[in-house]
């Protein structure tokens, strides 16, 4: 009877993982180039509305960010569900916006201080009352160039 001798090298050859580091490094460099560092963690719901007539924002060092929206679920028992403003890492009142903008403006280089844009990142469902209050504060400190930051898409999606 024929004997099926098991070959000594019958096992599958191991897949070479020598190129795995290269692949991972490629991914790493991709993410390093296309993303930017988070400078503040959001404590609010921040679903931006859609618009399609958008203009690109200026370079990052010429922009002051103001966030607004409902506090995210884990802050709701402390701060309630009414829409709030977030400056840097903490919730703020409308009256603090002016000082914040002045402080941010003072911290930029002198040649940039006249070309600053204020980007309003406001949640879709916020009432305009809060946004108008922010706009009034910005007018008081003469920060007149603003940008309503939006996602790129059809504006009719905002009306649900």
């Amino acid at each position, binding site marked *: 009877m024929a004997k099926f001798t098991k070959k000594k090298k019958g096992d599958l050859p191991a897949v070479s993982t020598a190129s795995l580091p290269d692949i991972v490094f490629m991914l790493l460099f991709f993410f390093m180039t296309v993303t930017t560092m988070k400078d503040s963690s959001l404590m609010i719901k921040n679903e931006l*509305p859609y618009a399609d007539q958008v203009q690109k924002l200026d370079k990052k060092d010429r922009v002051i960010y103001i966030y607004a929206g409902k506090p995210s679920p884990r802050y709701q028992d402390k701060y309630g569900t009414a829409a709030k403003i977030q400056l840097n890492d903490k919730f703020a009142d409308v009256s603090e916006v002016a000082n914040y903008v002045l402080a941010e403006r003072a911290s930029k280089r002198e040649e940039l201080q006249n070309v600053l844009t204020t980007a309003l990142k406001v949640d879709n469902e916020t*009432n305009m009352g809060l946004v108008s209050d922010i706009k009034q504060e910005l007018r008081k400190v003469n920060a007149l160039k603003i940008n309503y930051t939006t996602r790129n898409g059809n*504006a009719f999606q905002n009306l649900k």
Partner: protein
Amino acid sequence: MARRGAPPEVNAGSMADIAFLLLIFFLVTTTIETDAGLDRKLPPIEPPENPPIIKQKNIFTVVVNKNNQLLVEDEVMELKNLREAAKEFLDNGAGTGEKGEPCDYCQGSKNPESSDHPNKAIISLQNDRLTEYGTYIAVQNELVAAYNELRNREAQRLFNRDFTEMNNTYLDPKTPDNVKDDLKPKIERIQEMYPQKLSEAEPKNN
């Protein structure tokens, strides 16, 4: 005798793990920024000294109420019709402009009840304090789109290019200076033809 010729190879097996750690670190700490939006200019807080008298027919009033409904020139309107209505108003050109010149590039119906000239036409946008921000942005977007479509039409006629595309090239920091110098007069000319006069009134209190 032990081999001594070649140096021992460094084990690179853990390199992938190290790279993965770095990759995960960057995935967690960074975001892909959404840095585009609608640029607007707020009016200065102190009113101008001699506010010009503006005829009612040169003002296109858009009111958004607290139920996110639109009232355009005292008539209820759907958002999808707003762009056409705004274009019709801006492009009307029934009379003469600020310097007394007629609008020779307007293609509107020249209705004497509507705006005189694009450089006199003003769109006034009013909102309620309870209007939703998303709706407000949608309305703003439609109004900006009306301006952009008219500007694109004129830019196509004069320079065979879209105004929005020229403007984006101009604002792009990577564009070389000689291209910018070439674009600047063209953009200014189009902006002069259809100046964006979009006033955002303070909301009504109630």
